[in-house]
């Protein structure tokens, strides 16, 4: 075991001297995702909120047909623009987000008390256009409701007559759980962190060491190979987990830079989240380190190993996308599946939902068993004659 420690310390020291590894593990890996998040939110949310508050510019065709309606819409925040020749083409070309067209017989229908048609011209496949149309539609509905009430009152009837159902929303989400939806990709970034953090070492300890022909002299030492492997895997796992920890810290800092009060949601990454996440990530870190080493051991060269491991990185993405886009309820069995269990646990923690000690124990236990199985396979491969031969 002392030899494993010697190997471990040497691997840590050697890799800390490698600029590329250090930058990937401790800078790029953990920081890139939170940075993207903060920037995307700053830009996206701000522009969305700005639009919601700003007057809505709407070219109106046939404004003269309904001066009262236009005046009412202006009060509600519509910014009337001059009519344009071909509204359909303008919307498709994104020269206008939404155009309001009032037909010539609008006045007649209005006076007869029949539904008077107005046209909202928009393009649902353009997000800006769709949102603008929504806002315009809501303004029209507000005018519609007001006029309807006035007409009923004029006939001595209660406006409540045309409102048989009163809908009252009782949203059970909390600022934290709303954030959970937005940040459902976060567990994936943590798992990617493990991959990036462990990649350089997993390759270095197998294909890399063989490529620079240092494996054969190393194996000539009176140390059983499994002890060498144990030291190397410990170093790989350490780098991987440090990357995850830095990633969590980076996200907790990033949370402060997000416009959470405007969003009505908070990204709350505290000590409890960090500790529990690290607990469930610990066996996964070891499992993935073993897996990466196993895959890299089959590669003939450093480059080949890099290619294999980059492909391997997409595997944990699959459950992430499924869990992120399919509505699901965390089931007990999910905690038993490595990667899926971590995702489920982290998502619940993010939402501020309670995660039972039994669930966490199941998650850790099953990932540990999986890590042990992959360890046994990796050890067997590492012990093979073929591995050591450089040429």
């Amino acid at each position: 075991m002392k030899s494993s420690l010697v190997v471990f310390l040497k691997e840590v020291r050697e890799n800390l001297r490698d600029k590329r590894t250090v930058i990937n593990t401790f800078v790029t890996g953990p920081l890139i995702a939170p940075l993207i998040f903060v920037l995307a939110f700053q830009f996206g949310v701000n522009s969305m909120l700005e639009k919601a508050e700003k007057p809505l510019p709407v070219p109106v065709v046939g404004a003269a047909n309904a001066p009262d309606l236009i005046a009412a819409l202006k009060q509600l925040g519509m910014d009337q623009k001059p009519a344009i020749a071909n509204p359909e083409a303008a919307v498709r070309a994104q020269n206008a987000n939404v155009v309001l067209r009032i037909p010539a017989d609008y006045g007649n229908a209005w006076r007869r008390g029949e539904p008077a048609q107005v046209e909202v011209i928009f393009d649902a496949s353009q997000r800006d256009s769709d949102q603008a149309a929504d806002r315009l539609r809501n303004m029209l509905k507000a005018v519609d409701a007001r006029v309807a009430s006035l007409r009923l009152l004029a006939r001595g009837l209660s406006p409540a007559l045309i409102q048989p159902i009163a809908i009252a929303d009782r949203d059970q989400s909390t600022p934290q759980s709303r954030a959970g939806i937005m940040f459902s990709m976060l567990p994936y970034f943590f798992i990617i962190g493990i991959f990036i953090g462990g990649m350089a070492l997993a390759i270095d300890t197998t294909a890399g060491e063989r490529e620079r022909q240092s494996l054969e002299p190393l194996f000539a030492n009176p140390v059983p190979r499994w002890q060498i492997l144990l030291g190397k895997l410990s170093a790989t796992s350490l780098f991987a987990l440090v990357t995850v920890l830095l990633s969590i810290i980076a996200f907790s800092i990033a949370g402060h830079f997000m416009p959470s009060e405007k969003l009505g949601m908070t990204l709350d990454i505290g000590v409890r989240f960090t500790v529990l996440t690290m607990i469930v990530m610990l066996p996964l870190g070891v499992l993935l380190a073993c897996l990466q080493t196993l895959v890299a051991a089959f590669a003939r060269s450093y480059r080949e190993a890099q290619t294999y491991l980059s492909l391997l990185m997409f595997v944990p993405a699959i459950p992430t996308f499924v869990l992120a886009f399919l509505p699901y309820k965390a089931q007990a069995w999910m905690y038993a599946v490595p990667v899926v269990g971590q995702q489920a646990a982290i998502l619940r923690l993010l939402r501020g939902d309670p995660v039972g000690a039994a669930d966490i124990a199941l998650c850790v236990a099953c990932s540990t068993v999986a890590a042990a199985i992959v360890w046994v396979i990796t050890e067997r491969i590492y012990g093979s004659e073929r591995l050591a031969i450089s040429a």
Partner: protein
Amino acid sequence: MIEVKDLHKAFGEVKAVDGVSFTARDGEITGLLGPNGAGKTTTLRMLYTLMKPDRGQVLVDGIDAAVDPVAVRRRLGVLPDARGLYKRLTARENIDYFARLHGIETPTMHARREQLIDALEMRDILDRRTEGFSQGQRVKTAIARALVHDPKNVILDEPTNGLDVMTTRSMRVFLKSMKSEGRCVLFSSHIMQEVAALCDRIVVIARGRVVADETPDALRRQTGVENLEEAFVKLIGTAEGLAA
């Protein structure tokens, strides 16, 4: 002492080593001579337990390599065919890493390292990272790290390969000093001059078999040829793969 008894190793159809037996004694330099591809490296790899022989036995100081490979490696100092150093570590750190893997106490490690540094004349490169080392500097570092645990038995695979004349000369002096210290030195080479100049005993290997195992003088007598070079060619059957 290293005893090799009837070693066999095949890679698929190719019989790389096909019944090799010899003994390398303490206080002697034993040369493993053969053309490229004769099975020298594979034989040595089985000695330091990197490979398992299909058949046969390896004994190092009486310990069976198949029974206790770790104990065998403890008694061996090995300069393998692959001499890769850790390029982000200094020469000193490379040496110390192997010393620690041998479980040597720090004071002993320091003393032994200093001794080797002087013997190999490598003090000037000691604290440089090994990236960018010349071939000679690399071999010196690799040898120092292989011998830092003061092994009784030393195995060197083509130790002078790629070295310039001066370094080759100092390497020969170093091999002789190890012999005078009473160690069992076994090295492989395809260079006849070198084997002739250094060895107490020459084991000639061709096509995976031992074709001669004699002192240089006996070898001349056996083949009836006075010139050693002619003797080798006669033994191996061809001059191909040998260098003078």
